[in-house]
C-alpha cells in the first residue's frame, strides 16, 4: 500500500517536474517575434533605402495617418490662403472651426493648437523620414558597399537632403524660429533657432543637395528632384531671407540655363490631364495618384478634399476654401487689360465696398460684362454661370452657405471631367483626384526673380518677366469645350492687348508696354502679378508677410470684406504678433527638459 502510494506520488511529482522542465528547457518558449512587421535588418538594402526615400516624398501631402485634419495639406490652404485676402474657410459656420479661427486671426484659442500641431507633426515627420533615409543609406553603404552605386547613393543622398531642407522651410514659413534636425541628431528636444539661422541651415542643405543631385531626375522619375530643383528652391529661400543679390544670381542662372519653362497655357498648369502634368513649369509638385489600388484614395491630393463645390455640383462636397470677393474684384482689368489696382486713381476703388460704389461685387455674375476680366479669373475661381473647366456652370446649389462666405468656389485643384483623373473609391471619390499640387512652379520662381530684379534696380528685366507671365495667361480663357483641346479658348491679340468675348465674360489681358522706371511702381506691379498668377495656391499670406505688408493689407481687407461676408466681423485685428504662427503649445510642453522648455514661444503668443 505504502509503496503504491509512494510510487504514485513519485510519478505525479515526476510529471510536474517533467512538464516544468520541458517548458523551461525549451528556451524558445518565450521567444516570440513581433508579427506582421519588418525590422531594420529587412530594410538594410537598396529597396529599403529607396522605399524610405519615397516615404519622405510622400509626407508632402496629407494621409489618414498624418497629424491633423487639413493642416497637413500640401497646398497650405489653411495657412497660406485662408488667413490672407484670397480665401475664406468656406462651407458653413461651425464646420472645421479652427480654420475660421485662423481666418479671423484668433490663433491663440484652444482648438487652434491642434491644427498648428498637425502642421508641425507633418513637417517634422518629413524631416525624420528624410534623415532615416540618410542613416539607412550610410548603414547599407558601410555593410555592403556594392549594393548601391555611387551615382545612386549621391542621388539618394541629395534627394533626402533636399527634402529635409524643404520640410524645414515649411516649418520656417509657419513659425520662423524652429529647431533644425539632421541625420546625426538624437536629441529631439533641441532649442529653436533664430529665423535667420534656420534659413542659413536650409541653404547649407540646399547647397549640399545641389552638389549631390543629378541634373535630370534619377531613373527618369518625373517626381524626383534634381540639382535644378534645388537651385531654384535656393533662390526662393534667399528671397525669403531678403538676400536679394543672392537670389538674383541664383535665379538668373536657373532661368538662363535650367530646364524649366512656362507651360504653354495657364489651364495646363493645374490639371488632371496627364499629358500636361509635370511639364516644364513643374519645379516641385506633390505627385497625386488615384485608382492605384489604395482603397481610400489617400494618394490623391488628399489635403484638398474639402475644397470642392457643394452638393449641387458633381463633386458634392464640401465647399471649403472659397475665394473672396476681394480676390475676384482683383481680376478686373481696365481698357488696357491691366489691373486697375496699379493705377493711382483706382488703388482703392477697385474693391469699393457695397453701400458705395460696389458695382463690381455684383457684376461678377455670369453674363454681366460691365467689367472685363483677366482670363486667369475663370481658371482660379468658380463663378455662377461660367463653365467649371469642362463641368457644367455652377449655380447657387454649388455653394453651401453663400451668406457665410460668398458665392465662389475654388477651381485650380479641381480636375477636368474629360481627364478621368477622379478616384473611384473612398469616402468622397468625386473629391479626390490626381491633380498634382504645385509646391513650387516656374511662374512662381520667375516672379521671385522679378522681385529680385526690382530690388537690384533692373526694372526692365522685371517688366519682361511680368509680360512673359501675362502673355502666357493670354494663351487661353475658359471656354465651353469638353475635351482637353477645347476647354481653353485662345484670346485674340490686338497689339499688346489680348481679348476674347464669351457669353459669360469678356476676357482681356494687356502687357505693360511702358518701360518701368519707378522702382515703387515696378515692385507694386510685380506683387500684383504675383497675386493674380498664384491666387489660391497657398502663397499669398506668406508673400504679404515677407513684404511686410500683411498688417496693412489684411486689416484693410477685413474692414471691407466683412460688409460682404459678415462672419468676418469676428476677426480680431492683425497685429505684430501675427508675424509668426504660435508654436503649438503641446510641442513646447513636450520640449521640456527638467523645468526648462527648450522651445520658446514666438513673441506675443
Amino acid at each position, binding site marked *: 500500500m505504502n509503496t503504491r502510494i509512494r510510487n504514485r506520488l513519485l510519478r505525479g511529482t515526476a510529471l510536474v517536474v517533467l512538464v516544468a522542465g520541458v517548458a523551461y528547457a525549451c528556451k524558445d518558449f518565450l521567444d516570440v517575434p513581433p508579427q506582421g*512587421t519588418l525590422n531594420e535588418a529587412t530594410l538594410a538594402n537598396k529597396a529599403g533605402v529607396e522605399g524610405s526615400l519615397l516615404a519622405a516624398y510622400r509626407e508632402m501631402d496629407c494621409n489618414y495617418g498624418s497629424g491633423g485634419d487639413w493642416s497637413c495639406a500640401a497646398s497650405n490652404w489653411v495657412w497660406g490662403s485662408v488667413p490672407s485676402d484670397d480665401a475664406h474657410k468656406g462651407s458653413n459656420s461651425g464646420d472645421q472651426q479652427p480654420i475660421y479661427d485662423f481666418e479671423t486671426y484668433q490663433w491663440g484659442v484652444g482648438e487652434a493648437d491642434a491644427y498648428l500641431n498637425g502642421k508641425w507633426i507633418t513637417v517634422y515627420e518629413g524631416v525624420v523620414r528624410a534623415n532615416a533615409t540618410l542613416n539607412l543609406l550610410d548603414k547599407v553603404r558601410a555593410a555592403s558597399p556594392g549594393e548601391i552605386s555611387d551615382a545612386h547613393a549621391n542621388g539618394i543622398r541629395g534627394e533626402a537632403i533636399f527634402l529635409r531642407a524643404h520640410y524645414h522651410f515649411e516649418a520656417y514659413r509657419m513659425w520662423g524660429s524652429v529647431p533644425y534636425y539632421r541625420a546625426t541628431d538624437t536629441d529631439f528636444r533641441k532649442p529653436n533657432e533664430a529665423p535667420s539661422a534656420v534659413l542659413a541651415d536650409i541653404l547649407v542643405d540646399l547647397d549640399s543637395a545641389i552638389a549631390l543631385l543629378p541634373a535630370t531626375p534619377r531613373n527618369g522619375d518625373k517626381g524626383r528632384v534634381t540639382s535644378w530643383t534645388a537651385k531654384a528652391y535656393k533662390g526662393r529661400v534667399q528671397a525669403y531671407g531678403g538676400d536679394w543679390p543672392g537670389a538674383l544670381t541664383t535665379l538668373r542662372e536657373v532661368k538662363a540655363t535650367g530646364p524649366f519653362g512656362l507651360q504653354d497655357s495657364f489651364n495646363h498648369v493645374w490639371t488632371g490631364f496627364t499629358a500636361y502634368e509635370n511639364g516644364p513649369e513643374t519645379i516641385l509638385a506633390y505627385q497625386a495618384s488615384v485608382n492605384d489600388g489604395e482603397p481610400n484614395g489617400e494618394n490623391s491630393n488628399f489635403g484638398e478634399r474639402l475644397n470642392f463645390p457643394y452638393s449641387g455640383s458633381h463633386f458634392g462636397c464640401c465647399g471649403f476654401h472659397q475665394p473672396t470677393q476681394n480676390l475676384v474684384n482683383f481680376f478686373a482689368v481696365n481698357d488696357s487689360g491691366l489691373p486697375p489696382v496699379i493705377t493711382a486713381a483706382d488703388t482703392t476703388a477697385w474693391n469699393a465696398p457695397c453701400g458705395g460704389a460696389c458695382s463690381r461685387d455684383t457684376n461678377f455674375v455670369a453674363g454681366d460684362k460691365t467689367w472685363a476680366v483677366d482670363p486667369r479669373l475663370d481658371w482660379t475661381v468658380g463663378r455662377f454661370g461660367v463653365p467649371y473647366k469642362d463641368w457644367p456652370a455652377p449655380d447657387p446649389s454649388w455653394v453651401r452657405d453663400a451668406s457665410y462666405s460668398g458665392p465662389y468656389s475654388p477651381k485650380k485643384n479641381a480636375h477636368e471631367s474629360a481627364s478621368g483623373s477622379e478616384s473611384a473609391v473612398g469616402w468622397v471619390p468625386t473629391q479626390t483626384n490626381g491633380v498634382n499640387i504645385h509646391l513650387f512652379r516656374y511662374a512662381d520662381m520667375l516672379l521671385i526673380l522679378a522681385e529680385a530684379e526690382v530690388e537690384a534696380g533692373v526694372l526692365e528685366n522685371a517688366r519682361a518677366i511680368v509680360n512673359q507671365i501675362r502673355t502666357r495667361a493670354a494663351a487661353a480663357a475658359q471656354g465651353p469645350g469638353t475635351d482637353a483641346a477645347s476647354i481653353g479658348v485662345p484670346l485674340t491679340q490686338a497689339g499688346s492687348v489680348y481679348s476674347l468675348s464669351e457669353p459669360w465674360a469678356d476676357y482681356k489681358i494687356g502687357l505693360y508696354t511702358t518701360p518701368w522706371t519707378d522702382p515703387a511702381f515696378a515692385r507694386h506691379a510685380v506683387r500684383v502679378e504675383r497675386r493674380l498668377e498664384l491666387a489660391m495656391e497657398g502663397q499669398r499670406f506668406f508673400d504679404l508677410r515677407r513684404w511686410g505688408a500683411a498688417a496693412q493689407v489684411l486689416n484693410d481687407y477685413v474692414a471691407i470684406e466683412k460688409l460682404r461676408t459678415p462672419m468676418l466681423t469676428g476677426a480680431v485685428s492683425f497685429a505684430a504678433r501675427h508675424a509668426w504662427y504660435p508654436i503649438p503649445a503641446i510641442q513646447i510642453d513636450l520640449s521640456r527638459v527638467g523645468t526648462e522648455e527648450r522651445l520658446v514661444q514666438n513673441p506675443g503668443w
Partner: protein
Amino acid sequence: MEKKTIRVLATVGVSLLFALTLYGTAQAQETQVSGTVTSAATGEKLWGVTVRVKGTRTQTVTDQQGKYALEAPSDGVLTYTMIGFRGTEQSVGGRSTIDVAMEQSPTMLQEVVVTGYTSQRRADITGAVSSVNLDNANKQTSASVLQRLDGQVPGVTVEAGGSPASRTTVRIRGISSFQNNDPLYIVDGAPLQDTYLNWLNPDDIESVEVLKDASAASIYGSRASNGVILIQTKRGGGGTGVARRVTLDVRTGVASPVKGYDSFLMLNSLDYAEYTRLEYENAGLPVPTNIYGDPNNPTVPLYTYADPSTITSVDAWGRPATVNDAGYSYPNALIMPGSAGTNWWKAVFSPALQRAANLSVAGGGADNAYLVSFNYLNQEGTAAFTRYQRGGVRVNTAFTLDRVRVGENISVSREYNQGNVDYNNVAEGGILGKNIVSQPVIPIYDIAGNYAGGKATTLGNNNNPLRDAWAAKDNVGTNDRVFGNVFATLDASHGATLTTRFGFNFGQNLGHGYSPINPAVAEPTFNTSIYENEYSFTQWTWSNTLNYVRSMDRHRLTLLLGQEASKNSDRGASAGCASLVAPDLLSSRYIQDALCSSKNVSSSGSASALLSFFGKVDYNFDDRYYLNATVRRDGSSNFALGNQWGTFPAIGAAWRLSRESFLANNSFITNLMLRFGWGKTGNQQIPAGRVVAQFGGDKGATFYDIGGTNTSVQTGYRQIALGNPNMKWEENRTINGGMDLSFLDGRGSFTLDVYQRNTNDLLFDPRLPGTAGTASPAISNVGKMKNTGFDFSIGYQGSLGAGTSWSASFNGGHYKNEIVEIASGQNCFLGPASLRQQDAVINCVGDPIGSFYGLVADGYYNSDAEAAPFASSGAKVGRIRFMDLNGDGQITNADRTVIGSPHPDFSGGLNLGLRHGNWDLSATVFGTFGNQIFNAQKYWYVFGYFATNVRKDLLTDSWTPTHTNAKYPKIDVSDVYSRQFSSYWVENGSYVRLRSLQIGYNLPPALVRWIPAARVYVQAENLFTITGYSGNDPALPPPVVSGAAGDIRDQYRGVDQGTYPSNRTITIGITTTF
C-alpha cells in the same frame, strides 16, 4: 516509517515556531466523543469547525471529512463554532457519536473560497478578499456577470453603458497604470485578460471572489497588479445525495433609457427659430431666413428642402411655397417637408424587450458529478434596429477513480449582434451624437417616405439618427467561443494532491456589414460599400500544481507548488469593397470582382507567451495565528531576453483576537481578526513585439507616385514604432491592513481594509516631441503612481418575529490616485484623444490620472470694460470670463490648468433584504460621490457647434444685460471664445441610484403538482436616480480607447461624449426546480 518521519518533521518544524503558545491545558479524561459536522444547507462536510467542551479549554477541529473526536465529560456540553456559521451546542448526554448540521450565518457567504490554484476556508484568509453575494448580484439582468457586481463589492467599481452587450470596465481599488488596468479574470482556473465577458452566462456562475491586495493576488503574480476576479461556474453535485436536479429559469422584461435628450433639448421648431435669431442678431449678423422666413415672425416652413427642379414658387423669404411632387426622384431630386418639431430621441429610442431562459441539469453519484446547462438570451436594444442574442451550452463532468479525479468544464457559446450594438464609444459619430445634431425642424421622412435629413443650409451636418440606425441594421457580428478546461487530480495521500489542468479559450469574431447611400444630407454619399471582418484567437494555459495539507493538533500547514505555461496568439483579416453593382440584392453583398469594385484587404496578428513558477505556504496555529508567504516567478515574451523574468513575493499575517482567552467568552464578538499583507505584483499588458523597432509601410501613407503616372504608386517604408529592449515588468507594491469582525452570533459583520498601492516602473509610452516623428514612441519603464484608500462592508441580519427576517449590508470604498512621477523632465502629458481639436484631459505629477484640463471660467464679462483687456483674445461682453493665470494679459492655452477629476471620493452600495414567509423583498442602492464629469456634450447642446439642437433653457437662461447671473453665456454664433475647454464644462458627477428592487414569492410545493418548488419574482432596475448632473446619465463608462501601448481608457474617464444611457428595466421571472 516514511509516513511517520514526515509527520514528525512537520510537527517539529511548526512546533519550534510556536513553542510558546503550543500547549493547551490537559483536562480530565472522561468519554471519547466523535462525529461528523456538515452544513445544514448543502450537506457538505465542514472542515475546520472548532469543537470545544463548554467551560473548558478542551477543543479540537474537524478534519477535511468533517470528522472530529475528543474527550468530554459525559454530562458536558460541546460547542461547535466556525466562521460563517451559526454556533450551536450539543449536550453529550452519554453519547459517543454526535453528528451536527450547522446553519450558515446570514452575513457570510461560502465557507470555502477559491483563492488561487486552491481553496481556502473563508476564515483562514489573511488578504483582502471579497466574496460576491450572488443572490444580490443576480437581481440585475445585464448580459454580463461583471455588470451585476455594481454596488456589491467594496472597492470595486463597475461601469458599462446601456446598450445591449456593452463592454464593462471593472476597476479594483483605483488605477495603477497608464495602460491597461483590467483585473485578471480566472474562470474555473483558467486565466483571461479580456474585458469582454458577455459570452459567459451569468446564470452558470457559482461564485465570484475578488482578490484585492497583493498578498492575496500575488500567486497570480504576473498579471495580478490590478487585482484578480475569480469566477467559478456551477458544477454537478456529486456525492451530495441529490440524484438529479433540474432548474429552469425564465424571465422577460422591458428596458427603456433612464433619461433621454428629449427631456432637455428643444422639441419645438419655433423655439429653435428664436434661438437662431438670437444667435445671429447677437453676433451682428443677418439672420438666415431660408428655413423660418421672417426672423421677427418665424414660421415652420412648408419644406425644409426641395430640389430646385421641383420648386414651382417661393415665398417672400425665398422658401419653397409650392413644389411639384411629381418631380421627386430618389436619390437625386428630394423633397422634404418642414416639421413643427421632431422628437429625435423618441424616433430612435423605445422600450425594448429582453428575454432569457436557462435550463440546467445537475447530478451525480458517489464517484461522478455532472452538470449541463443551456442558456439563451435575447436583448433588443432600446435604440432602433439593434439586438443582442446569446446562446450557450456548458457541460462539466467529473469522475473519481480511486484516488484520481478527472473532469472537464467546457462552455460553447455564440453571440450574435445586429446594428453596431456596442455604442459605448460613439461621440458624435453614432446615433446618440446624431440625435443631438438633429434640429427639430427636420422631418424623419421625406414626402415619399424615404429618410429625410438636414440637407438645407443652416441645418447643420445632420445625419438622420434613425436613418443611421437603419443603415447599420445589416451590420452583423458573431462571436463564437469555446472556453474551458480539462483536469486531473491525484490524491497522493499524506495530504498531497497533484493537479494538472489545461485551460483553453478559442474564439472567432466575424462581422460583415453594408453601408447604403446617404443622399438626404448636407454632405451626401452616393457610394455603397460592404465590409467583412474575421478575427480569431487561441489561448491556452497549462498549469500543474502540488497541494499539500497537513493538520495536526492545532497546527495547520498548507503548501502549494506550481508551474504554468501559457500562450496566446491571434490573427485577423478585414476586407472591404465599394460601389456595389447591385446594392439592394442581399445575395450580392460579397467581396468579389464582379459584384463590386475597389477591394481593400488587410490582416494582422500578434503572439505572446508566459511561463511561471510559483509556491505558497500557509500556516496557522489554532486558527489564531496565521502566516503565509507566496512567491511567483514569471517570464513574459513581451520583454527582451534578460528582462523577461520578474519575481513577485508576498507575505500575509493575521491574528484572530477572538480566539484569545481575553475575548473567548465575549458575548458580543463572534469573530475578530486583524490582517496584514504586503506583496508585489506585476504588469506586462502591453502589445506584443515592442522590444524591437518596427518598420512597415502603408499604401496610403508611405507609398508614392514618384514616376508621376497618376495611377500607380511605388513601395515606401517608414519606422512605425520605436523599440525598447530594456523594458521590464511594471511592479506594484501593495500594503494592506484589515479587520474582520462578526458579532452577535454572526448576525452582524464588519470588514475594513486600508491599503496603499505603489506602482513603480510604469510601462508607458511617453509621448515624444513632434521632431522625433510619428512612429509610436517606445514603451519604457518610467513613472510612478500611488493609490491609497480603504474599503469596508458592514452587514446585519435580524429577525422580526417568527418567519420574518431582514438584512442590510453597506459597502463602500475610497481611493486617492496620484501620479508620482512621469518620464524624466515631464510633469504632464495630455490625454490620448482630443475632442474636436481640444484636449480635455491631462495627466500631471501630483494629480490623479485623467484629470480634466482647461481654462478657469469665472462668470461672464458683464461689461465692455471687463472684456476690453482681453479683446484681442476674443473676449466680449456676455462671453465666459476666463482667468489669466499666467498674467500675460491674454487668454491663451498657457492659461490652462487642471480643473477637475473624474475620481470619486467615495462610492458604495447598500443592499437591503426582507423575508416574510414565502415572500421576499430586496433592494440595491448604488452611490458615487465627489467625482466630476467633463460634459463634452456642451459642444453641441450649449454652444450649438455645427448648428446642432440645443437645450431648451438656453432661451430663458442665457446671458443678457439684464440677466447676468445666467446659466449660459450670451447666445452668439460667432463666439468661439466661450467654448474653449474650461471649468465651465466640468460638473458634479455624484449620483445615487436604486439599482434594483425585487419582490419574490416562493410557491408552496403542493401548489402545482408537477413543480416541486418554484419562485416567481418581479424586479425593477434603475428605478430612480438622484443627481445634479445636467446631461443624460451620470453613469458613464469610459470609452474603449487604445493607444500604441495598449488600452488607455483610464485616461478618459468621466468625459461625457454621448454615452448610451442606462436602462430602466422591469422584469418578471420564474425559477423552478424539479
